[in-house]
């Protein structure tokens, strides 16, 4: 069997049914084998490798299965870089396979040669250059194993053209044979006991749930935990998808644009159990006073996250799910009802608010969509104000329903991520929110929607600005709107129609409910071009590096 065929057979062994791929000279043999022997593998061809990589990422985030990408060498590979970096920051399991020039040409600056393992080194969990066909199957085994276990992440396999053509016997190993890689499978029992003790002593405990809860499929366990002990929960942007029975326990998301009550809870808690969070600067603000009254327990599968940004009182290395299962069985005595009431009273006095004027408010759109779309709708956002409004006003009750580029903040992520989600979840609603700027970064993928007849509901929040940056300019640069004007946007309705997608314009608040209902009910893809108030800002806002309680609520 030649290397290209071995590759195809290995994908089948891994149960891969969807491949996001774009061809070229260095992968032509693989495409040929896919053509001949690729039964059971659906090929999704984007219009740009970046779009394809984000789509694989959206597929992975929404399904929990690894996203698989195949591209050619040189420019094909470098076009995936933003997608790989995005996946790396948010710990998405991706396997990206790149063609490479033949082994005898490597290092000669051959046509379409680029040092893929060199370039992707800092943005992959691992990467491999396969120089011998005998190593191909085991490398693929390792790549999938590494991408999906422990702290997930993207893995790159670079396969030179001649290796694809060489023959060897196909034998797919059961064991990846990685002796030095052993992710923890459960938290240390002693630490679990200590946690139970600390919780029994605490009067104001708070759970801070991050993306790791979604990645570890721990949402049910966490909900159970919250219901059992009646502990309030705040999330990071990536932690959305938590749904306790008592809505008072839910504080929304923390950080720069977090709710006042979530940040209040952080700053006033006496014990925080952080689960699967990285404590990024967008979450902590000024680290020196972050959670200043609280003891901190940090649960994470990646020991390097613990103590990286914030000193920790009790580290627990292990997957969120098994740690929560242990905690659900622990003996915890505590009555936190006064604390729940304290947060709730604070919330009633300091809710999320926006000014209701005659103009179309983006927050209103998000609220409407959250009410009208089914609960298990998968929502993808782009980056900027639109992302924060969705984070604030959309109530996510299910795991893996919020797809957003949290760590890298990649504009252009929303549309292709939604496409990947639609590919992986044909029976569910997929809703995209994007700014007018970010939408145009990967709008060529509208054709992917058409090509595969996908169902993606799209809302462009058009403020004719690069809104989030404009907001910073308003606040910090005396309204000098340098480089943020988007007054020259194309006609988004016509644009959608060129790709055969139904589109409507929405400008008046009184039409919003009807249009969002129409969007939800539409049997095909549909785009809403929402012309929103250009001056709307995301509030509350904790300026970068400031303490979480130094909040701006008005400009």
């Amino acid at each position, binding site marked *: 069997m030649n290397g290209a065929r071995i590759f195809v057979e290995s994908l089948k062994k891994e149960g891969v049914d969807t491949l996001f791929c774009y061809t070229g000279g260095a992968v032509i043999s693989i495409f040929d084998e896919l053509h001949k022997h690729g039964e059971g593998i659906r090929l999704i061809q984007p219009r740009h490798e970046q779009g394809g990589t984000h789509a694989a990422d959206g597929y992975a985030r929404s399904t929990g299965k690894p996203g698989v990408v195949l591209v050619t060498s040189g420019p094909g590979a470098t076009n995936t870089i933003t997608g790989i970096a995005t996946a790396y920051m948010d710990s998405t399991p991706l396997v990206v396979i790149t063609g490479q020039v033949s082994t005898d040409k490597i290092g000669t600056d051959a046509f379409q040669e680029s040092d893929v*393992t*060199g370039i992707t*080194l*800092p943005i992959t*969990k*691992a990467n491999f*250059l396969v120089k011998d066909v005998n190593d191909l199957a085991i490398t693929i085994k390792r790549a999938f194993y*590494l991408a999906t276990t422990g702290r997930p992440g993207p893995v790159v396999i670079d396969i030179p053209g001649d290796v694809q053509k060489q023959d060897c016997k196909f034998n797919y190993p059961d064991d990846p044979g*990685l*002796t*030095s*890689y052993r992710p923890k499978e459960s938290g240390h029992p002693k630490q679990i006991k200590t946690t139970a003790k600390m919780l029994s002593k605490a009067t104001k405990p708070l759970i801070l749930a991050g993306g790791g809860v979604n990645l570890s499929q721990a949402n049910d366990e966490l909900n159970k935990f919250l219901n059992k002990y009646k502990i309030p929960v705040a999330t990071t942007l990536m932690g959305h998808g938590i749904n306790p029975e008592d809505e008072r326990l839910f504080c929304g998301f923390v950080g720069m644009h977090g709710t006042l009550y979530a940040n209040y809870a952080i700053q006033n808690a006496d014990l925080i159990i952080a689960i699967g969070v990285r404590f990024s600067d967008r979450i902590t603000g000024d*680290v*020196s006073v972050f959670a200043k009254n609280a003891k901190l327990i940090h649960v994470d599968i*990646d*020991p*390097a996250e*613990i*103590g*990286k940004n914030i000193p920790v009182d009790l580290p627990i290395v292990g997957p969120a799910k098994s740690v929560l299962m242990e905690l659900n069985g622990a003996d915890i005595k505590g009555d936190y009802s006064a604390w729940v009431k304290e947060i709730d009273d604070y919330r009633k006095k300091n809710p999320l608010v926006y000014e209701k004027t005659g103009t179309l408010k983006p927050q209103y759109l998000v609220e409407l969509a959250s009410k009208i779309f089914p609960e298990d709708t998968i929502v993808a956002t782009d980056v900027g104000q639109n992302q924060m409004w969705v984070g604030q006003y959309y109530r996510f009750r299910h795991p893996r329903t919020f797809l957003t580029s949290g760590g890298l903040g990649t504009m252009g992520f929303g549309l292709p991520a939604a496409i990947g989600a639609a590919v992986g979840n044909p029976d569910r609603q997929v809703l995209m929110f994007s700014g007018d700027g970010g939408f145009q970064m990967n709008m060529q993928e509208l054709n992917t929607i058409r090509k595969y007849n996908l169902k993606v509901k799209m809302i462009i929040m058009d403020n004719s600005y690069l809104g989030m940056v404009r907001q910073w300019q308003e606040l910090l640069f005396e309204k000098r709107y340098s480089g943020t004007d988007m007054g020259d946007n194309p006609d988004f309705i016509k644009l959608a129609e060129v790709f055969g997608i139904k589109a409507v314009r929405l400008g008046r608040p009184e039409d919003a409910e009807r249009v969002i209902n129409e969007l939800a009910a539409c049997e095909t893809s549909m785009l809403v071009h929402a012309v929103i108030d250009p001056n709307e800002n995301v509030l509350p806002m904790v300026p970068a590096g400031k303490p979480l309680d130094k909040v701006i609520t008005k400009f």
Partner: protein
Amino acid sequence: MAEKEQLTDHIVSVLVNNHPGVLSKVTSLITRRGFNIDGISAGNTKQSDMFRLTIVVKGDDRSIEQIQKQLYKIIDVVKVWIITPESKLDREIGLIKIKIPQSLRNEILQMINVFKASIIDAGPEGFIVEITGTSEKIDSFLSLFEHHQIVEVARSGIVAMNRWDKK
């Protein structure tokens, strides 16, 4: 917040699988996380498929622990030791080509003896001296010579391990 901790030299020893690119993975990780590498050496161990890197980095104690954890995330990293100042045993080897006028040769030979260094090559213009010891010892040997007398210096970088009694 505590004042910035003092930056000191730390020695980190890393046992790695002998796979292509592993050296650059280790060094680029350290630089990427904001540390300077002051010295590095690499060599085989008792297993032929592994080698051991000894790296001198500048950082505070907390960040050294960070580096250790980050290094463990590299798939080919098998073990990471932090060599603590109390229990460290470290050695370096230096080869030094020195220009020496005939008249000074005896004096220089005595110095070489004091440092337990040895002459491994000699020519009409001077010697090549091999010296082994701590880096400080090599530093002080070098400082005995005028700048122009030293023609070339090659140092191995530190190799180090913790003493037996380090738990």
